[in-house]
C-alpha cells in the first residue's frame, strides 16, 4: 500500500474546489494510495477565518463537516497529530534551514516555513511520501521523499 502526506496547499486547493486538485486527489485514492494530512494543515486552512465577514461559526462547522466526510470516504486516511518527536524533528530541520539558507523577507514566510517543517517532520516520522506543489521548499531535506502534486491551478475567471 502506497502512503503519502499531502501538504497544506494541496488540501486548500481540494477544499476550494479547484478542478486540478480534486482530479489529482481522487486519482491517488482510486490508484490505491492512502492519503494522510497533518493537524498543521488543518490549522493552516483556518487562516483567514478571523477576517470573514459572514458567520465564522457556520464556516467552521461546514469545514469540519467536509473533513469528516473526507475521512468517512477514505479520502483522508488519518489526520496525523503533532507529537513531541515531530516537534523536536521540526526544530532540528528549521535549525538546519537557518544555517544554510536565508528566508525571504516576505511577510509570513517564516511562519509558513515553521508549518512546512512540522509537515516535513511528520512525513519523516511516519515514512510517508510528501506531496507538494512547492518542491523547492522541501527538496533540501535529504531524508525526505518528496513528490510533486502535479496538477495545474486555473483561475476560471468566475465573476461572483
Amino acid at each position, binding site marked *: 500500500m502506497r502512503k503519502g502526506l499531502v501538504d497544506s*496547499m494541496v488540501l486548500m486547493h481540494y477544499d*476550494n*474546489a479547484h478542478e486540478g486538485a*480534486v*482530479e489529482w486527489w481522487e*486519482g491517488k485514492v482510486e490508484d490505491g494510495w492512502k492519503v494522510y494530512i497533518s493537524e498543521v494543515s488543518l490549522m493552516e486552512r483556518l487562516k483567514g477565518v478571523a477576517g470573514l465577514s459572514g458567520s465564522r461559526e457556520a464556516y467552521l462547522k461546514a469545514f469540519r*463537516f467536509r473533513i469528516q466526510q473526507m475521512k468517512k470516504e477514505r*479520502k483522508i486516511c488519518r489526520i496525523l497529530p503533532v507529537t513531541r518527536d515531530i516537534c523536536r524533528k521540526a526544530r532540528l530541520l528549521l535549525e538546519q534551514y537557518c544555517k544554510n539558507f536565508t528566508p525571504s523577507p516576505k511577510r509570513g514566510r517564516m511562519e509558513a516555513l515553521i508549518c512546512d517543517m512540522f509537515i516535513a517532520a511528520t512525513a519523516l516520522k511516519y515514512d510517508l511520501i510528501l506531496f507538494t506543489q512547492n518542491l523547492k521548499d522541501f527538496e533540501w531535506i535529504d531524508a525526505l521523499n518528496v513528490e510533486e502534486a502535479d496538477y495545474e491551478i486555473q483561475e476560471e475567471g468566475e465573476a461572483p
Partner: protein
Amino acid sequence: MSKGELLMTTDEKVELAQRIEGQLTGIIPSEWNKWCAYARRFGIKKAIQFAQIMQNSPSLRPGPKQSYRTISQVMGRFRKDLEKLSQDELAEVFGYVRRFLFARRGETHEERTRR
C-alpha cells in the same frame, strides 16, 4: 408549502444555499454547473438519479465521479427543500451555491503570499 404558493425570502434562499455549499466536498464547479442545468430541465429527482449513475460511470475521470458522488449525497439530503421551489427560485439558490463555492477561495487566503 407547494410550488408558487409561498415564496421563499432572499435570506431564506441564501441560507439554504449556504447549507448546501458547506457540505460540498471535492466538487468541481463545472460539474456542479452541468448538474444544475440538468436539474432545472428535468427536476431534482431525476437529476439526483442522474448523479447516482454518473458517480459510478467508468467513462468519467476520478474528479467528476467524486463531484457526482457528492452531489447525489448532498442534494439527496436537501431534495425536499428544493422540490418546493419554483424554477426561478431554484435557479437563484443554485446561483448562490456557485457563488459561495468560489467565495471559499478568497475567504481562506489560500494563496500564501510567500509562494
